[in-house]
């Protein structure tokens, strides 16, 4: 086994920090919220103060508590939709790439159709027909979002599977007589990991956007607190025009921060896959320490190399696994 060497670029570390912070908030958010987010027992339209960090709504609810409680629903739906959609992409993408022939044609056509239909309008149409019981259930919403979000991942995974399909080690297990399913699961799937991780991050990013947008439009239950319903209430009470920035800016910034964190992590995966990007992701100080030229030169793309001892073990393990 070659050990995964995570890129040490500052962008990726920042991404890890942001995503980690919001994951913790997902778990503890509702516990540390100072007040009940729906309770209307404060003075309305208070500006931020020590007792109400982000002030109160025009109904007299504590905005900071809404933000903390809303983190859970937002993140859980995004993670659920991201995981389900990625599971769909893996199944469809790997099957299409590995099976080839008419199965590939059909599955590729299916994902291309889903890519070409604009996602949000489709989501709005489906969601507007959901019965009220379905619309107020976040898990149903998450599943509908995943239905509209799997196609991009399937396309990328299919391309990667195609390039893996004819490598020697896959050929070898085919000659031994391994079953197709076993080859797909044990030989091809592990080598798809970086692409898979990147597509998972993108899908979660898409799911957060889609969920928040549906809530903002008023197509989810307004009784469930998430960052989108906060924006919905702020908008329908004209908070932006009344200058109540402390009502609608915090949820928007949180959404953007989670998205930025996910995208920064994805840079790390890109740098992991493409060594040329890896060297350019380092700061000046790290470049000097790794013995790279201060300024990149043409034609000689600096490639980061593993320190000598690791190379030796990597070689040993590759030869022993063959």
């Amino acid at each position, binding site marked *: 086994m070659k050990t995964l060497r995570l890129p040490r670029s500052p962008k990726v570390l920042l991404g890890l920090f942001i995503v980690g912070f919001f994951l913790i908030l997902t778990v503890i958010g509702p516990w540390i919220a100072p007040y009940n987010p729906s309770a209307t027992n404060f003075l309305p339209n208070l500006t931020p103060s020590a007792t109400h960090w982000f002030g109160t709504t025009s109904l007299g609810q504590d905005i900071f508590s809404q933000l903390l409680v809303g983190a859970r629903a937002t993140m859980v739906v995004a993670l659920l939709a991201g995981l389900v959609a990625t599971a769909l992409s893996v199944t469809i993408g790997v099957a299409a790439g590995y099976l080839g022939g008419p199965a590939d044609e059909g599955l590729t056509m299916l994902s291309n159709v889903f890519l070409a239909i604009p996602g949000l*309008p489709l989501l709005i149409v489906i969601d507007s027909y959901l019965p009220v019981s379905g619309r107020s259930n976040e898990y149903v919403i998450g599943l509908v979002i995943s239905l509209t979000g799997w196609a991009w991942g399937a396309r990328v995974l299919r391309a990667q599977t195609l390039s893996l399909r004819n490598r020697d080690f896959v050929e070898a297990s085919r000659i031994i007589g391994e079953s197709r399913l076993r080859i797909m699961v044990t030989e091809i799937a592990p080598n798809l990991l970086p692409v898979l991780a990147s597509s998972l991050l993108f899908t979660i990013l898409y799911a957060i956007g889609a969920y928040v947008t549906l809530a903002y439009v008023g197509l989810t239950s307004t009784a469930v607190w998430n960052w989108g319903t906060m924006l919905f209430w702020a908008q329908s009470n004209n908070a932006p025009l009344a200058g109540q920035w402390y009502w609608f800016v915090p949820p928007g910034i949180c959404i953007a921060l989670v998205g930025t964190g996910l995208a920064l992590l994805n840079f790390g995966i890109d740098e992991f896959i493409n060594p040329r990007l890896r060297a350019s992701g380092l700061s000046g100080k790290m470049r000097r320490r790794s013995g790279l030229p201060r*300024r990149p030169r043409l034609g000689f793309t600096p490639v980061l190399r593993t320190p000598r001892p690791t190379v030796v073990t990597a070689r040993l393990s590759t030869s022993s696994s063959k």
Partner: protein
Amino acid sequence: MRMIARKLSLYALTAWVAITVNFLLPRLMPGNPVQTLIGQLTGRVTPQQVHAIELSFGIGLHQNLFHQYTGYISQLFQGNLGVSITLASPVSSILRAAVPWTVGLIGVSTILSFIIGTFGGALLGWTRGSRFDTVIPVATFFQAVPYFFLGTVVLLVFGSTLHWFPVLGAYSPTLTPNLSWTFIYSLIRYGELPVITIVLSSIAGWMLGMRNMMITMIGEDFVLMAVAKGLPRRKVIMHAARNAVLPSVANLSLAIGLVVSGALLVELVFNYPGVGNLLLQAVLNEDYPLIQGIFLVITMTVLAANLIADLIYLGLDPRTRTEAAV
């Protein structure tokens, strides 16, 4: 030509899927909301209109699903999208008034964002490792902000606080649409903030994609060769950029759907009289014929835009043409 035929058949299939989804959703969903809605309609619209709505949703019809389906499709081909419940006029005529605004707004923003983003990305790729790299996290942040939220902030700061731009609507309410310079000037002024919002939200994707391709290209031998020949730096950059831009153009048709999805909400924020605004009004009023008509029209427009983007790609990349000739 084979590639065009392939693309055409894909888009035809997509159009068919969209139409079929539109047909099946109201008929298969449990607890059809349209049925309850029609009960509240009495007195607000004429009995003929109620009948037309019932027809388009297959209520009270003693036909099998297949008959309803063929009837639905033949109505579509005659340009009949049904009657709006709240506005009590044909959906097709409502849409005819709204579509040009959306196509204009999103078209201009997408072209601007693609051009600026690609040039910016090429320069970022060339100067990689320099202090310009700080643009990347900033651009990523703007990409992660929901379009409608960025629109709200931009509206609040530059519109209603600083008064740098006129806001709300597509042109000054004192004017009537005509071809005079005053009207066109007003149109441009009112369009500035929505366009800036959409460009800011969508530019990062083009920029990052182009930067990464550029870094990959710079390592190629032909760039080294160009430098060795002593070409001026500007020419070398163009040389590499021309080759790096191909994946961006290939992705153009995929990105259009995403941009459209985000931009529809910008219309709501700026009260722009386009399809997005109409769609959200329809959702609030539970105006199902209008929702479905808008979904179909948006999908068809996006498919047409995709086809144009594919044709541009075909014109740019000679490899796809030789492949098509074989």
